[in-house]
């Protein structure tokens, strides 16, 4: 059990929290994640990447998007509140001096990308970051990334910031240029990672992706995080989370992520109703309404 040290809302759906975790802050490397639980008894275990760490203060930073019941429960926590946390988990990113690295981050994926960009830069690479999001509001970590990267290319779906384009466009351009990347790292929604891998495939540029499968224990016990890579079953929590994007069975992975969609929607709905009920001053009436609506 540890507690929340600070909390900031980065956008409508994105939160940045600092959590007290001295050992994790000391041991973690770029690319690793933690499993958090809102409470010990009934909460779900959800994986979140370590976006930053401060070993001196014994704190790690998590950046997450509220997509369902568990991330909402986390967002509802305040400074000082207890949470359960296990980590650091997964294999650290393999960092070396590759030469030119292109790091592509989509939406919330920009948070886990940040420590990798930092580590690649520290290892002496030239680092180009491509930051993408649906709209300007969802572009996070821009200051941090700008201060580290040699170049920051911004692309939004609606053109509200940077280019009006998908991240795969600038990625293809760089691959086709006379100075193609030696390595590409892509983190974001599975569909984005899939198309980044497709974009680099014809150029033969090695492309690392960080998979966000469903997880339970995160320690190599349950097999829930399995994914087919190069025709072999791999376990993301102990064999990953990073894999060669050209070998991942993306369609299989994406359909596994949808396993619980129906229940998740119900749970999400329920938590919104609970929230609405709590906010309403005539709680009893609202609660009745909420319960009835289930």
């Amino acid at each position, binding site marked *: *059990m540890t507690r929340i040290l600070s909390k900031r809302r980065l956008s409508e759906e994105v939160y940045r929290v600092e959590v007290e975790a001295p*050992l*994790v802050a000391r*041991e973690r490397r770029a690319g690793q994640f933690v499993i958090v*639980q*809102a409470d*010990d*008894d*009934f*909460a*779900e*275990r959800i994986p979140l990447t370590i976006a930053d760490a401060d070993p001196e203060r014994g704190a790690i930073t998590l950046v997450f998007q509220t997509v369902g*019941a*568990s991330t909402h*429960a986390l967002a509802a926590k305040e400074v000082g509140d207890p949470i*359960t*946390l*296990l*980590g*650091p*988990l997964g294999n650290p990113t393999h960092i070396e001096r590759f030469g030119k690295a292109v790091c592509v981050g989509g939406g919330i994926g920009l948070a886990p990308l940040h420590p990798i960009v930092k580590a690649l830069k520290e290892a002496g690479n030239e680092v180009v970051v491509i930051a993408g999001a649906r709209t300007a509001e969802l572009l996070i970590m821009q200051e941090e990334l700008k201060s580290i990267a040699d170049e920051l290319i911004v692309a939004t779906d609606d053109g509200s910031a940077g280019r009006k384009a998908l991240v795969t466009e600038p990625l293809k351009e760089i691959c086709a240029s006379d100075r193609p990347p030696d390595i590409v790292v892509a983190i974001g929604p599975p569909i984005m990672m899939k198309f980044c891998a497709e974009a680099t495939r014809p150029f033969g540029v090695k492309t690392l992706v960080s998979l966000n499968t469903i997880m*339970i*224990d995160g*320690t*190599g*016990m*349950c*097999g*829930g995080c*399995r*994914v*087919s890579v190069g025709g072999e*079953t791999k*376990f993301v929590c*102990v064999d990953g989370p990073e894999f060669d994007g050209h070998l991942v*069975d993306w*369609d*299989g992975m994406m*359909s*596994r992520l*949808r*396993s*619980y969609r*129906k*229940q*998740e929607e119900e*749970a999400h709905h329920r938590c919104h109703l609970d929230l609405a009920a709590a906010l309403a001053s005539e709680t009893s009436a609202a609660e009745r309404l909420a319960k009835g609506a289930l």
Partner: protein
Amino acid sequence: MSGASKEGLERQAREALGRIAAIRSEGRELSPRDRLALPVQDMPCQVPQARAANMLEVAEGYSEAQAKVEAERCLDCKNAPCVSGCPVRVDIPGFIKKIREGDYVGATRAIKRTNLLPSICGRVCPQESQCQANCTVGKSLKSIDAAVQIGRLERWVADNERACGACDLPDVGNSSGKRVAVVGSGPAGLTTAIDLRREGHEVVVYEAFQKTGGVMVYGIPEFRLPKSLVAIESNLLAEMGVLYQLNFLVGRTRKLRSLLAEDGFDAVFIGAGAGLPKFMEMPGENLVGVFSANEYLTRSNLMKAYDRDRAATPIYPSRRVAVLGGGNVAMDSARMALRLGAEEVRVLYRRTREEMPARSEEVGHAMEEGIIFDFLTSPTRVIGDKDGRAEALEILSYALGEPDASGRRSPVAIKGSERVVPFDTVIVAIGNESNPLLSRTTPDLKVDKRGHILVDGAQKTSIDRVYAGGDIVLGAATVILAMGEGRRAAAAINELLG
């Protein structure tokens, strides 16, 4: 196995006690013949229809009268063949005699000299292949089911002790100034911790999960082993001064080496348990709706997904469930699926009931609850719908062939017997590989080719001052074997630090 009502069983036990008292009032002791004539005491159980819809414990436990009668069935054999069948050599005739004498505290003490978790072993040991396998009474009556019900008695003694609040803690020796780290809080880790603490060492148990107990909390379901019991046993350790560090993954949160080199531990015991689930390696196994038993059971046990109103962890909505395998894990998955609302649950097993490794009591219970067994069948692939969800299994029939090297008759596929059977959920329960985490993060820790940690006769690993035991050494074993290894390791560590 079961069938008679609780009241019926109680009446029968009281009648038997009457007969025993009558014999004694004549001034003579029961003869072996009298003892063999006493009825085997059945376990009172929730009725199958009711229990298939709840999570409460299926077996309700003996009454005092039943325990007394069952204790009278023991012949107190000189050579005690039962004891040699028990991996930790519980003094079986000794504790049973104490029950007869009405000295229940003495009975607990007799058991706890070698077995520290009797309320758990009494429930989950495969007695029919261990202590009860060799029992003279069973042999005389020519039925393994007629053996003295040692496990049930052990459970009763422990439950009775708890009910009386008479638990006395093992003595903790004077502080030795030495520190030992225990990795994992399953039965291996917990037993090691107790034996180390008795010698006055400081013991810190590191556990990756948010709860202690290992498979006893995340694998074995509530209806077979109540989690409150495991919590009580774990708390007992805390009362003895054992320290728990939960949510701590040795190898990641801290390297094994650092525990010895920097954190001041004098020795380490690894009881990390089994690891990654095995799959059949058949096409379609990564489709939605296909689970490892570990995932399925963890969701429903540790994360309490069955408590739909309170738990945040979702459980897959299943109607037709296929469970692949024939061990305890398969039985638990099948019975759990039923309790979570599945309409039809079938266990697919390649051999026949005789070869099933599951405890026979559990197989019986599963059958009573309506689980269907398809023996001599095994799937060849999972068939999915357009959304990647499992919708059917292709199944093949088998026949038993010649006995192989292990003496088991191996199944041979019958050509042309393929058929497609609809299932929306497939639970794979065919065993585990070993967890690779510690060996990958501790390069000089030697493992065999299947990843199990190699140890010597005293449970010592390839690294000095590091010991290991339980499933991480044995592969999937049993609670009592894990405990036995833990005790052996603790003895070696105590000697090392002594």
